[in-house]
């Protein structure tokens, strides 16, 4: 039975490999497990092993060639077996999603387009057993990790594929518990729960190295499994939905807060009761800036972009086991005092979980502030279907150059995460310019 030698995916991030050197030549007899070639990946040089015994009938790439993962690079077969069908088949693209990009670097292997009749393209699946016997699951830790399932179609349920993609998991290194090794939803959930990432599925050498570096002495921490609260589940689900399908990009700017903070102080000095917080000021300014940039106050709807008719600001509030984002409705139409009263109420009730769904759903833009926790700047993950979220860092006194002089100023860094389907770079930057101008010159607010 003829089997293909393909450029195996030897690391989770590998998209192509350089064939450093063939260790065999055409006509050689090989046994399963024999080393066929040395391959340079994006991480290290590794060996490709023979999956089956036989005669090396064809070597399709030369030493030094760079080949896409999954591409056919040679054939092992019986000495007199007809391998013309295998040789005619186009190089097999990898089933790893990223491999599509790698297509142009395929070597001089036959490059005609995939024939429309499926039969000659992939003779192997018709008789899957000899092509690559499914490794017994119990052997998994000890079998050769150099040969994950890349040349073969990975059996995976549609929803598992989607979830794995969203979580950044590499299906090629996962084992499936469904029929015929199908990777099912439960497998992906288990992989996510155990924190398995492509990096966590270490090669033997890396794992050995990690063990060698393990410190001595009594561990001060213990393994703990903490059941997900409903809230943590919801957070996980929504944020995975976000960072997966939403093309994020991030814009950071530093804002001089002198005048804004002065204004806040003089306002508070005149107030007999209540107090306007920095957050209230930010809500007000952001809301005002959004009315001037309605393209930011928007959502992606598949075949359209919706610009919202109201400015409803979500305020991210940390909780002991999660977070919640109460929504301050129509923030653009409310005064600072009203915003401060309403947000204090929303935040207080949010902390004790006394918000109704209407009070924490449907924001059009969210502000997340970690300044009080000494964070200088960070990137927040968009809460869909909103198109952007603004991450606020702490305001710190720092030296800045002004008119050629070094002076001390209170400065704050903000980073906006944008959904690129809705917001383009310049569009987002223009919004931040407006925001910055308003904070640096609060009179803008009334202009």
């Amino acid at each position: 039975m003829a089997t293909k030698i393909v450029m195996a995916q030897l690391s989770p991030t590998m998209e192509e490999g350089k064939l450093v050197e063939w260790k065999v030549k055409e006509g050689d007899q090989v046994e399963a497990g024999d080393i066929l070639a040395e391959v340079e990946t994006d991480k290290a040089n590794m060996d490709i092993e023979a999956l089956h015994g036989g005669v090396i009938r064809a070597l399709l790439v030369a030493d030094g060639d760079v080949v896409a993962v999954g591409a056919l690079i040679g054939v092992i077969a019986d000495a007199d077996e007809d391998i013309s069908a295998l040789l005619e088949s186009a190089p097999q693209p990898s089933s790893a999603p990223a491999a599509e990009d790698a297509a142009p670097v395929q070597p001089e292997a036959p490059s005609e387009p995939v024939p429309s009749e499926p039969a000659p393209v992939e003779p192997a699946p018709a008789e899957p057993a000899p092509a690559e016997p499914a490794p017994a699951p119990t052997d998994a830790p000890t079998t050769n990790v150099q040969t994950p399932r890349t040349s073969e179609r990975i059996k995976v349920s549609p929803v598992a594929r989607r979830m794995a993609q969203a979580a950044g998991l590499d299906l090629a290194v996962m084992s499936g518990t469904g029929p015929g090794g199908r990777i099912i939803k439960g497998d992906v959930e288990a992989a996510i729960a155990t924190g398995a990432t492509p990096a966590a599925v270490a090669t033997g050498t890396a794992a050995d190295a990690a063990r060698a570096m393990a410190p001595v002495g009594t561990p001060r921490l213990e393994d703990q499994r903490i059941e997900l609260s409903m809230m943590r589940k919801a957070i996980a689900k929504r944020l995975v939905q976000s960072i997966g399908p939403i093309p994020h990009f991030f814009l950071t700017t530093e804002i001089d807060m002198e005048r804004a903070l002065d204004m806040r102080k003089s306002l508070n000095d005149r107030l007999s009761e209540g107090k306007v917080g920095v957050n209230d000021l930010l809500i007000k300014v952001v809301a005002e800036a959004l009315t001037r940039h309605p393209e930011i106050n928007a959502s992606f709807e598949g075949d359209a972009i919706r610009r919202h008719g109201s400015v409803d600001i979500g305020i991210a509030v940390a909780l002991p086991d999660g977070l919640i984002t109460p929504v301050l409705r129509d923030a653009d139409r409310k005064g600072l005092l009203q915003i401060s009263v309403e947000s204090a109420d929303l935040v207080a009730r949010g902390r004790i979980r006394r918000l109704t769904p209407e009070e924490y759903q449907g924001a059009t833009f969210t502000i997340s502030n970690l300044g009080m926790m000494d964070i200088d700047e960070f990137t927040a993950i968009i809460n869909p279907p909103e198109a952007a979220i603004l991450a606020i860092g702490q305001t710190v006194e720092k030296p800045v150059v002004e008119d050629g002089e070094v002076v001390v100023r209170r400065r704050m860094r903000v980073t906006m995460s944008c959904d690129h389907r809705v917001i383009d770079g310049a569009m987002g930057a223009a919004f931040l310019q407006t925001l910055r101008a308003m904070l640096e010159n609060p009179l803008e607010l009334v202009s």
Partner: protein
Amino acid sequence: MAVITYREALNRALREEMERDGSVFLIGEEVGEYDGAYKVSKGLLDTFGEWRVRDTPIAENGFAGLGVGAAMAGLRPVVEFMTWNFALLAYDAIVNSAAKLLFMSGGQFNIPIVFRGPGGAALQLSAQHSQVPDPWYANIPGIKVCVPATPADALGLLKSAIRDADPVVFIEGELLYNMKGEVPDGEHLVPIGLADIKRIGEDVTIVAHSRMVHVALAAAEKLASEYEVEAEVVDLRSLRPLDTDSVIASVRKTNRAVVVQEGWPVSGIGAQIVDDIQREAFDDLDAPVARVSGLDVPMHYARSIEKLIVPSVDHVVNAVKHVCYLD
């Protein structure tokens, strides 16, 4: 909320609609003097008289055709078939006349008629009297098909059917007539073409209609207690129009589906629903959709064999275990 039987709910629907609209009348075999073979029309003759509750000869195509003509002339006939098995003789009146006249008259004639009667297997009625007619009618553009599973839905759907401007095939569950359930007081209408979630669950969607809803619900309880699987039961209530949106929304949530129908598997309603699911929710599926159907044979008279032919709770439980990878 009163608790009444499915039979009483149908009777109440007929009575309310006949009181509401003088153009509504009931014809069929033994609907008058005998109060109906299944007593659905009990007391209606006494109340409304023989002009509006009319016994017919044993001539299904004749009285079904009479109904179509009356509907063309502006009345709202309710035609009872003693069972849908007998309506095969009236198939021409239903399919070629009622379903086609609006179209073929260029929109001149609405046919506001209801054909109703029991369908499905009962107990040892053998091959000719145990058939599930659902797909024979759901296949036909120009008619609507209602298949209620509960007294409340039977009441609300029959009232909607009588008021509908188009022909409605109303298939009652023969084994459901004695089933009791809560029915809202006052006017209760259920829109045709809207499914109903009869049980909320997270792990698997069971789609069913008519008596199979109760099989699905019993299976769901067994799955919950024995396998910790929470099934969502979607009752289609109408087969045409079919509420695909509700089915898809549920499958998107659960990622797994089992479609249950009492009738034969080939070209059955379940095939249509599976097709909708695979097209609309492909990326949400964690397993191929499973179907549970009656066996592909004529119904046997022997009780022991009849039990094997009709889908049971265990059939549904096994199918759910399969799609949840528990078998």
